[in-house]
């Protein structure tokens, strides 16, 4: 169980050589082997969503996936959102709308919303509530997160852009 296997993980466009036991979760491998600690672990049973990352365009719980299963996939984490130190519109909207307090759940929410925007940027308020209820936040009461997302969604509609913070 603790024998290591070697494989490669592509995260935010960079290849990482990984040697870890097959039971290691994607969340732990991202944090420890790729040293990308922006992906947080909040419950390890797939409910809270703090560990949400985008794998091949879909938001997934990195605590419910083994690292080895992400072999050959494109993984995107919160660290990949800002480009050249410029925050993505969604990251900036989180700051502008006071959509975070302790910030522990924030990367998971950002990736959850990002995954949704990539699939359908034209999100309505009801869909948004359902989407946001995928993850837990204990500080904000969610209202400001929704405000931030709606602000970006409006801008996206206005500019007909398809994605937020997607590597160009």
């Amino acid at each position, binding site marked *: 169980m603790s024998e290591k296997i070697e494989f490669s993980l592509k995260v935010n466009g960079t290849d990482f050589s990984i040697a870890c036991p097959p039971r290691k979760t994607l969340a732990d491998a991202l944090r420890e082997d790729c040293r990308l600690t922006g992906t*947080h672990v909040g419950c390890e049973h797939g*409910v809270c969503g703090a560990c949400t990352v985008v794998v091949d365009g879909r938001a997934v719980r990195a605590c419910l996936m083994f690292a080895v299963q992400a072999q050959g996939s494109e993984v995107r984490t919160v660290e990949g959102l800002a480009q050249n130190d410029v925050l993505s519109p969604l990251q900036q909207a989180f700051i502008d709308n006071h959509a975070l307090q302790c910030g522990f759940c924030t990367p998971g929410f950002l990736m959850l919303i990002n995954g949704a925007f990539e699939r359908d940027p034209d999100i309505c308020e009801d869909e948004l509530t359902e989407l946001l*209820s995928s993850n837990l936040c*204990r500080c904000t*009461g969610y209202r400001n997160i929704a405000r931030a997302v709606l602000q970006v969604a409006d801008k996206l509609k206005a500019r007909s852009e398809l994605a937020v913070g997607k590597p160009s």
Partner: protein
Amino acid sequence: MKTDKEAMSRSSHSRQVRKSAYIGKSVPRLEDRPLVAGEGRFVGDMNLPHQLWARIVRSPHAAGRLLAVDTEAARTMPGIVAVWNSDDISDIPNIPFRATSIQGLGPYTQPILARDRVRYVGEPVAVVFADDPYLAEDAADAVFVDVDEDTKPILDARDEPGEFAPGASTEPVIINKGYGDVAKGFRTAHRIVELDLSVGRHSGIPMETRGALAEFDMVNEKLHLWGATKRPHWNRDRIAEMLDMSPAQVALHELHVGGGFGIRGELYPEDILVCVGAMRLRRPVKWIEDRREHMMAANHSREQHHLIRAAVDSDGHILAIDETLHHDQGAYVRTHGARVADMSIGLLLGPYAVPAYAARAHFRLTAKTPAATYRAPGRFEGSFVRERLMDAIAHELQLDPLELRRRNFIASSEMPYARNLSALETEVILDSGDYSGLLDKAKRFAGWEALKSEAAERRAKGKHVGVGLGYFVEKSGLGPSELVRMTVATDGSVEIVTGAASLGQGMETAIAQIAADTLGVDYSRCAVIHGDTDKIAFGWGAHASRVTVMTGEASRLAAEEVRIKALNMAAELLQCAPDGLFLDDGVVHHVESGASVSLAEVAKALEPASSQRGDRSPGLTAEAWFHNKHMNYPYGAHIALVCVDAETGHVKVERYFVSYDIGRAVNPSMIEGQILGGLSQGLGGALFEEFRYDDTGQPVSVTFADYLMVSAAEMPETAVQILQDAPSPLNPLGLKGSGEGGVTAAGATIATAIDDALQRPGLVRRLPVTPQYLLQRIAEYDAGQHDARQSDDLTGACE
């Protein structure tokens, strides 16, 4: 001569143009950028070379004699460095108290690993140290814990007390408080109203579980602990005592903290185990709690049973209140001692004048996870009880419930109002407040009459829609003291060092705003350093909604002193008198001549070797203390509109309004954020959250699938009204705290709104109002009514 009017217009003009006027502005937080970029540094993100991973082995039994903790098999597993049970750390004392003046609790303190007996499921019985966290967990599974379940666990604080240890009852203390002639009040009463009410077991549940990383620096013989928060200095001193070291040999360091809510940052067994591990194994030790552990090991809170009686006259004036509390402390007395039970009865009366009061709190141990504070401790529970009582009195006398409240409010002319009660080891003296005024404003803000009409109309169409109001008094600004050291660097940036802590609430921004506003600099050039015992000698941390008040005022005092020093030096640099100078946005201006010098240049002129310094003390720096013997008391009202699905028992909170008087708002956006976040926790406690146990004491709510927290789908549309009508007279800015007011009246408000929706006064008697509870209560209520309502009246969903 200038007229008053001219002087006023001039001064308001100068206020308008002052760039550094930050108090009262919703400026963006200084904390946010690294957190949204994934560059935060929580304790789980930090690693040290050659570190070990600790894993705690926990009791699977609720109560029993500990026969053996067999670590043999675990020791030989791969990657395992050590496995300890209580024999290995028998020299380490139990965890002491910090927050109680109540004596006699010593026998009930928790050992860092169970000795002789286990007392709750989740109690640490052994610790594994390994090279890798996965291997540590494997080995922990191999530790065999042999327990003789020789007693039946006590699982209800209302049961007859048992024996904790020979000669020590499971009721360590009964706390009595009160004043006035209660018996006379009841003797002369027009009516007596009695209620039996309960609140379930909840906890703060921060999204980041607990964690710790310790290293023993052998060169300097100094122990470092990262992951500390809330009370770093107190925790440092106690760790030093427990490990027989000097406080100077222990340093606690705060990193990013993923939420606190009262439960995080208290001294727990795991913190000590990590420290002892690092010292004895001579390698850094890291421990990160998993969620299941968190649910059974971190402090619980809230679970109380109240039997309350009120004597009232025919106009609805309260003559006396008699209250009996049974407080479910869980298995040990932790750092708070009996504080929550104590303040529950000390702060129960809220905004009302009560001529006579007698209360007793039965502080009792049970076979559950030990309890302590959770955001608005004692006030979430007490507000539920008190506001239920007010509604019951109003119903009994056929009075409007809001009018009844108004009749019993303490008048603003009576402030400051001494309660003749104590809480948190201070005298309760309500410092300021216009309770009646806020009630009017809250009603207008929410459109109370329109809400009532809407609910009535929808009820007439067969829906179960109701409106409720809960009134509350919070407390904030707990002393005794706070120290701030402020230094302007030679680039004009400002460092503010405080012994307060950050749990993610935004204190860096609030403190920077106060300091920048006072000093006259850009708030984003102020760095607030907190939670580090090596950076400042004293500190009282972050709890009890105290940081903006205590560190805020200390920062204002320090900034005032720095400003005076800066103007004095600048006067010489500009060859003028200091009183013609004006410091704003980091530049000292001479108002008449227009000459100016930057704060950076002033700081350079005050460098030790500067020829311009003269005989002034080197450095543009100051230290200031703020001491405060009394808490202050913000207050407010919650209003909710709910719709009940009578078939399923589901309660949908459709709209919510919070009006809150904070005295002086430093950052309205952050205050609104505190209230919204608090409200989501309050609604969780009102409707969903509960730690349940089966009858053998096994916890059945140890995942997020069982312990249900509010998600975006349950959070109602909410409007927050921040008022500044009653500044605190206890500090010059009039500050009060905002950390807890979003939680406090949520249970009370939801309960009364549900009663209204179902047109059954006094229906809700316990929180959380789960669908199962509500359906059962409706059946029980209707069975008890003489006018025998038809249960099949109750149909109608919300959609």
